[in-house]
Structures are given as structure tokens and as C-alpha cells.
């Protein structure tokens, strides 16, 4: 393999065009993958989109409707304005026709025009007509468009025929009608009546009202106004420009602003409320996460509190069930390992008993024979013989215990009152260990159990011995409690209790925390309890406390023995 000298080493790689992004802080990274954060963002976006769509939809629809309404009102006002003009023109035309037949007017006009009459007569007639009918302008013209008599502002000369039109006089638009004065079917003068249009429009559309109507000439106009063509004279174009004030528009804008604020505030409130609710609902997931981590570390048996019956609650319940099952599996596994060890020990014990017990028996018997002939033995030999016999006995008992430990417990059960039975066992134990005070607290009422009294005494003696050795000369308490199916015998001492490691290996054969202990007592006690369908529990966090659980008579669930 070619080795590159550092001097010939290639240049360091150029920096990447795309630098690595700065990693997010831990709490932000957590938020990035948080379901709650994602749901919060989704909720916020959904509510914002929904609010915006709702607002825009309402705005579009309402604005369109109000615009149509305003157009309709403008069209109606235009029709109304045009009708007013046409009505007033018709009335004025009718009045002109009627007045053109006025005898005084006709005669005075004819008298002046054709009979050398004074002008004052038609002028008086015109004034009388104007005052009688409150007309702003009355004009009398001859057929040559010469003004004969007039009152007020006078529009341009009328045509010789009857006619109606609007016409400008200065800045004022007038309704103008004319009617000929006839004689033998021939017109000899023309009566012209005129009234300003604006008062009629003001009466129908008072100044300051929503509708504005104004006259306009030419083509100029405002798009927002509706134009109504009026009959004009001399080819002029005269319009009425009608506009309806959009009084609804500002109110609509205010409503839209208010609606926008309301939707924004309520959208935020709804978002936060939903987020809070989701956070409350998803809160068990955090505890569940921690509990699952504990399971991953092998800490079974943890239980979580569930709320309600929703999916989260069902998940928590499923976790609790799984945790319980895992704990039971671990116990079962432990028991299986225990059983396997017991089986190994049993087989080994049988072999030992077969291979060692017989020589030990010979050794013990020879030693006893030597003890029976003390005269024949020197004192030292006699002492040695006794020592041999003693230790041989011990070896044989150990072998016997091994055989007992590996042998399945065989029960000779009979019904007993456990209160009485425990009291008897306690009395004998007190006699054996008078230095250790033992208190016995019976259960209320008789506690009938089907037990092997001998095995039960052996189990309790083992446990009491452990208690006495944990706290020598300190009080030990045996108490009984019963429920509908079980009775619990609790042995409590004031010792330090078991360490965590000891709790894990309590029932392993030959595991002991006591000097001189053989590590078979607690396992033997457990075997006896299980043979009665019960169990031994050493609750964590309760030092110096061992509970034996036994089924009441009639509820005996015999479990396989060792």
C-alpha cells in the first residue's frame, strides 16, 4: 500500500459549498419532532385558513350583495328622477295647453300683435298667469321668436309647436313647455312656461339624503353615477346624474374589521384551547415514554394512571397490562431458573448422597464405636473420635438438607386455624430463642387453611430465624391478616432489610448474606409456600418485612412443588 508523505498529501478538501446547518437547540429539536407542536401548528394553520376563507367568503358575498343593492337603488332613483321630470313636464305641458286657451291672454296677445294694442295687456296677462299658478317663468313669444311679454328668467325661444323639454338658463336647468295660441288653426303666438327642475328633485330627494341627483350637460360623467337622458332642445344633451350614497359601505367596512378581529381573537383562543386540551390529553404519553424507557432498562411492574376511555387511556392500560405481563414473565423466568437449579442440585445431591453418605455413615459409626470403648482409647484419640463423629454428623445433615432441598415438597395437609397454628409455632420458637421477643398478632376471627403443619412450622422457623439474625435480640412481630381468599402472614423485624442485589438473588441456592448461612433456608421456605398454593413476597421499600401469602381453605390453588 502506498503511503503518502505528508508533504505529498493532497490539499485539504475544499469547504463544502453547503455548510452543515447549525444543530437546533435541544428544546427546539424536541419541539420539531413533537406531535403536540405539530398538531398545534396544524391547528393554527387550519383555523387561520378556515377563518380567512370564511372571512373572505362573507366579505365577497356581502360586498357583492350590497353593491347590487346599491346599483338597484341607483337604478330605482334614476327611474324615479326621470319619472319626476316626465311628470312635471307633462303637468306643465297640460297647464300650458290650458293657459294657451285663456281668453284674456289670447285676446291681449292678439290685440297687441295685430291690433296695435299696448304691450301692457299681454304683459298683465302673463303676470296674472304667473302669479295665479306660481310659475317662475312665463313667456309669450310671437311666431317670429320675438319675446312679447315675460316674467322671470326666460329660456330660449320655443318652437311654434307644442313641446316639452329641459333647457339651461345660466346654471339652472329648467323644465320648459310651450303651447301655441291658435286662431283659425294658425298659431299667432307661443306661450312658454318654465319651472326650475331642482326644487322638484329636492322635494323627492332632499339635500342630505342618500340620493344625489344633479343635472349635467355634455358627455362628461362619473362612472359611479347613473345617467338619465332628458329631452333637450336645440340638439343639446342634458343628463340627470343620479348617485346613491353608499351608506352601507362604511358600516360594512367596520363590520368587516370587527369580524376580522373577532375571528382572529377567537381563532387564537380556539387554537390555544385546543392545544391545551391536546396537551392535557397527551400528557400520559410523556409518563408513558418514561415508563417505556424504564421497561427498556428492565424495570417491570410500573403502572400509569389512565384517564377516560380514549385511545391514550387504552394505550396506557395496554402498557400497564404489558408491564404486569413482563413482570410476571420475569418472575416466571426466575422461577424457571430456580427450578432448573433445584433440579441440578437434586441430581447432584442424589449422587453425593450415594457417593458420600455411605462412607460418612461408616466414619460416623466407627467413631461412635471408638467412643463406646473409652478405656481402650487414649484420651486424645477419644477426643478425636468424638470430633470425627460430630463432623461426620454435620456432613450427613448437610447432605440430608441437600436431598431435602432438591426433593419435591410432599404435603400432608389438614385443616387448621392458622391463628392457633401460628401461635403454637411462635410459642415453641420463643422457647428456643428466649432472648428474642416475638409478638404474635392474630387475624380477626378464625382463619381456616389446609396446610401441612410440619412444613409450615419449618417455613416460619426459617423466616423467624432470618429475622432474629437480621436484628439480634430485637423484637420480631408475626401478624396475620385475611381477606376473602387469602391470608397474609407478615414477619417484621427492625433489621436493615435486603439490598437490591440481594433481592434479585434471594432464592438462589447457596446465596446468603449471613455468616455461617448455607443459602438454602429462604428457597426452602419459598418452596413450602408455593407447595401450599401461596407465595412469599418481599415488598421493596419495606425493610425487614416478609409477607407469606396462603390461600384460605376452599380457595386452595395448588401450585406445583419443587
Amino acid at each position, binding site marked *: 500500500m502506498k503511503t503518502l508523505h505528508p508533504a505529498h498529501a493532497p490539499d485539504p478538501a475544499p469547504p463544502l459549498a453547503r455548510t452543515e446547518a447549525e444543530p437546533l437547540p435541544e428544546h427546539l429539536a424536541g419541539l420539531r419532532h413533537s406531535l403536540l407542536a405539530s398538531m398545534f401548528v396544524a391547528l393554527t394553520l387550519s383555523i387561520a385558513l378556515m377563518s380567512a376563507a370564511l372571512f373572505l367568503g362573507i366579505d365577497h358575498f356581502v360586498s357583492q350583495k350590497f353593491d347590487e343593492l346599491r346599483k338597484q337603488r341607483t337604478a330605482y332613483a334614476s327611474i324615479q328622477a326621470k319619472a319626476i321630470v316626465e311628470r312635471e313636464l307633462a303637468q306643465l305641458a297640460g297647464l300650458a295647453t290650458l293657459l294657451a*286657451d285663456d*281668453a*284674456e291672454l289670447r*285676446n*291681449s296677445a*292678439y*290685440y297687441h300683435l*295685430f*291690433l*296695435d*294694442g*299696448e304691450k301692457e*295687456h299681454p304683459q298683465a296677462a302673463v303676470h296674472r298667469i304667473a302669479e295665479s299658478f306660481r310659475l317662475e317663468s312665463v313667456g309669450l313669444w310671437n311666431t317670429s321668436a320675438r319675446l312679447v311679454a315675460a316674467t322671470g328668467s326666460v329660456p330660449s325661444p320655443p318652437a311654434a309647436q307644442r313641446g316639452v323639454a329641459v333647457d339651461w338658463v345660466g346654471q339652472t336647468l329648467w323644465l320648459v313647455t310651450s303651447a301655441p295660441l*291658435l*286662431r*283659425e*288653426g294658425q298659431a299667432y303666438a307661443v306661450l312658454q312656461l318654465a319651472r326650475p327642475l331642482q326644487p322638484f328633485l329636492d322635494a323627492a330627494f332632499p339635500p342630505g339624503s342618500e340620493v344625489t341627483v344633479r343635472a349635467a350637460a355634455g358627455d362628461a360623467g362619473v362612472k359611479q353615477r347613473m345617467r338619465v337622458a332628458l329631452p333637450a332642445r336645440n340638439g343639446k344633451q342634458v343628463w340627470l346624474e343620479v348617485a346613491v350614497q353608499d351608506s352601507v359601505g362604511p358600516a360594512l367596512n367596520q363590520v368587516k374589521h370587527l369580524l376580522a378581529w373577532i375571528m382572529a381573537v377567537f381563532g387564537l383562543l380556539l387554537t390555544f384551547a385546543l392545544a391545551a386540551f391536546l396537551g392535557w390529553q397527551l400528557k400520559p404519553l410523556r409518563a408513558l415514554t418514561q415508563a417505556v424507557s424504564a421497561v427498556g432498562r428492565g424495570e417491570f411492574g410500573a403502572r400509569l394512571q389512565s384517564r377516560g376511555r380514549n385511545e391514550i387511556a387504552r394505550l396506557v392500560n395496554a402498557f400497564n397490562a404489558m408491564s404486569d405481563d413482563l413482570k410476571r414473565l420475569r418472575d416466571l423466568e426466575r422461577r424457571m431458573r430456580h427450578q432448573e437449579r433445584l433440579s441440578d442440585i437434586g441430581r447432584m445431591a442424589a449422587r453425593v448422597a450415594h457417593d458420600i453418605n455411605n462412607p460418612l455413615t461408616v466414619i460416623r459409626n466407627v467413631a461412635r464405636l471408638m467412643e463406646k470403648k473409652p478405656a481402650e482409647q487414649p484420651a486424645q484419640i477419644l477426643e478425636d473420635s468424638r470430633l470425627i463423629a460430630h463432623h461426620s454428623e454435620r456432613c450427613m445433615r448437610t447432605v440430608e438438607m441437600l436431598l431435602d432441598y432438591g426433593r419435591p415438597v410432599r404435603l400432608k395437609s389438614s385443616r387448621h386455624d392458622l391463628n392457633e397454628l401460628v401461635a403454637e409455632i411462635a410459642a415453641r420458637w420463643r422457647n428456643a430463642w428466649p432472648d428474642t421477643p416475638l409478638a404474635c398478632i392474630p387475624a380477626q376471627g378464625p382463619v381456616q387453611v389446609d396446610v401441612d403443619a410440619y412444613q409450615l412450622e419449618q417455613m416460619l422457623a426459617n423466616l423467624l430465624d432470618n429475622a432474629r439474625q437480621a436484628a439480634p435480640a430485637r423484637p420480631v412481630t408475626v401478624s396475620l391478616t385475611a381477606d376473602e381468599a387469602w391470608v397474609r402472614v407478615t414477619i417484621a423485624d427492625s433489621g436493615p432489610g435486603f439490598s437490591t442485589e440481594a433481592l434479585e438473588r434471594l432464592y438462589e441456592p447457596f446465596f446468603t448474606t449471613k455468616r455461617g448461612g448455607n443459602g438454602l433456608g429462604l428457597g426452602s421456605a419459598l418452596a413450602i409456600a408455593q407447595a401450599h398454593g401461596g407465595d412469599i413476597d418481599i415488598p421493596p421499600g419495606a425493610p425487614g418485612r416478609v409477607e407469606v401469602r396462603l390461600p384460605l381453605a376452599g380457595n386452595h390453588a395448588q401450585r406445583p412443588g419443587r
Partner: protein
Amino acid sequence: MRRRDFLAAGLAIPGLLPGRGAFAADNPLVDAPGGGYVCRTRVAPPVFPRGPGDLSYQGTHILAQGALRELAEVYRGPAGGRLHVAGGGCDDGIAGVLRMQVDLGGMCCPVEKSRAVGLPWYLVARDIKVVIAHPANPVTDIGFDELAAAAAGRISRWRELGGEDRAIALVVRNHCPDYLEPVRDLLLNNKPDWSPKGLFVERDEQIVEAVARYPGSLGLVSWVFAKPLVETGKLKMLKVDGVRADARAVRAGSYRLHGPLNVIFARWLPKTMRPFFDFLYSARGLKIMNRVLVPVSAEEADYRPGRWA
């Protein structure tokens, strides 16, 4: 055309014939109530109380205003009966009588050649037609022929009559056009050939008002209507051929411009009509008639109570 209008208005057959509107459209000179071409001034017939002994009159307003209203105030018929008076034109009187709406009808035209031919009637007075002019007009006298020429338009300026050089504004009420209206008959041979430059009016009151207003005007009207203005100096009454218009001149025959005032009726009602006519031709009645009219005696009128029984 005129007869149709008369029938529609007077005989009250509305809807069967074109009414005034259609007529007026064709002839704008008569498109007003009481148009001058029809001797009719009332649009609707009068409604009188009908007590026992009451009499009702409708017709020429010359007679109504000249005598009958005053006479009605003093006349009391049998059972306290009163005379109820409504004006109008000759056709109003004829129509009222024919339709039995009134008991008596008044006419300012001769019954002959009128639609009242065949109805019983009595001459009750004569109406003096006076020639009037503006008080400022210097002319005081006019010849009958000059008057006829002015009425026909052959004389059109006052200068021709001895006055100022200005046009003559003839004020005319062309009433009872198809009757033998006495003045028209005298001046125009009963042809409606009035001066084409005349000022036509609808009522006699308008004649006196127009003449009083226009300095260049000339009018011919009943003394009944001219008397108040002449007496107050607002009108000038012209002599005709040097003869002043009055009852004496009429009776003497020196003043030719006058006309009969006749009362027509459909049937003789002796219980109510006789007392009335008796009163009318009585001295008291004649006195009332004499105020502005030329009274006619019972003999001249050939009043005989049983004549039309």
C-alpha cells in the same frame, strides 16, 4: 257638427256621440265651457228644490240677470211657491225644458228657426244691444252701416270712424250661431262673418271687461251687462246713428239693435205658471223688467192663460 254638440250636451246622451273634446280638437275656438258657437253656457244642469208651487227657470242669462233674479226675490206662487233661476244660453233653456229638468226656458233668440220651434212660449221683454268703446276713445257716435262694416271687418281702423289712427279691436261673442240671433241678423244678415281680426270671447261679461281694458276695442253687448260699467265711467256707450240706446228708443223704433227675450215651456202648468206670468206681466213685474230691459205688456206678448192649455 254643431247639432251633434248640441245633442250631446243638451240632450244628455253622453258616450253616444263625440263630446266636447273631439269637437274642440277640430274647432279650438269653442273648446271651453259655454263656447260661443253654441248658445249654451252650463256644463251640468241645475238642481232646484222642488217644492209645491215652485217654478224653475234656465236659459239666457240676459233675462236671468236682467230681471228674473230680482223678480224671483219678490215673487211667491201658490202655497208659497218660489221661482228658482239659473242662467245659461238659449240651448240651455231649450234642453232643460225638453228634458223636463226645468219648467221654464229662456231664449235671447226668436223661437222661429230655433230648436224650440213647436214649444209654447211667451215674449217677456226686449234686450237692448248697446255699442260700447273704451272711455278714452274720442268716438261718441257710430253709424249703423259703419257698425256693420266694422263687424264684418270692412272698416278696421278708428280713423275711418273719426277717431284715432289705430286698429279697431272688435270684441265679439259669437253666440247662438245657428239661430236667428237678432244683432247678427241685423249687422251680418245672420251670417257669422265677423271681422277676422275680432277678439272672440265666451261670455258677455268678457265683452265689457275687454272693451273696458283695451283702448282700441269696440263691442256690442246687452245693456244688462254694460250698464254698471257705463254708469261708473269705465265704458263708453256710443250712439248709433245719433240715437242713444234706451227703452224709449227701442219702443219708438229709432234704435234697431235689440232682441226678444222669450220664455218657453214644454207644457202649460196652470197652477204654477199662470200666477207667475200674471205676476210677470203685472205692473210690478213690468217695473222690474224696466230696470235694464224693455218690458213687454201682456197684450204685446199675446199672453192668454188658456192659450197653451
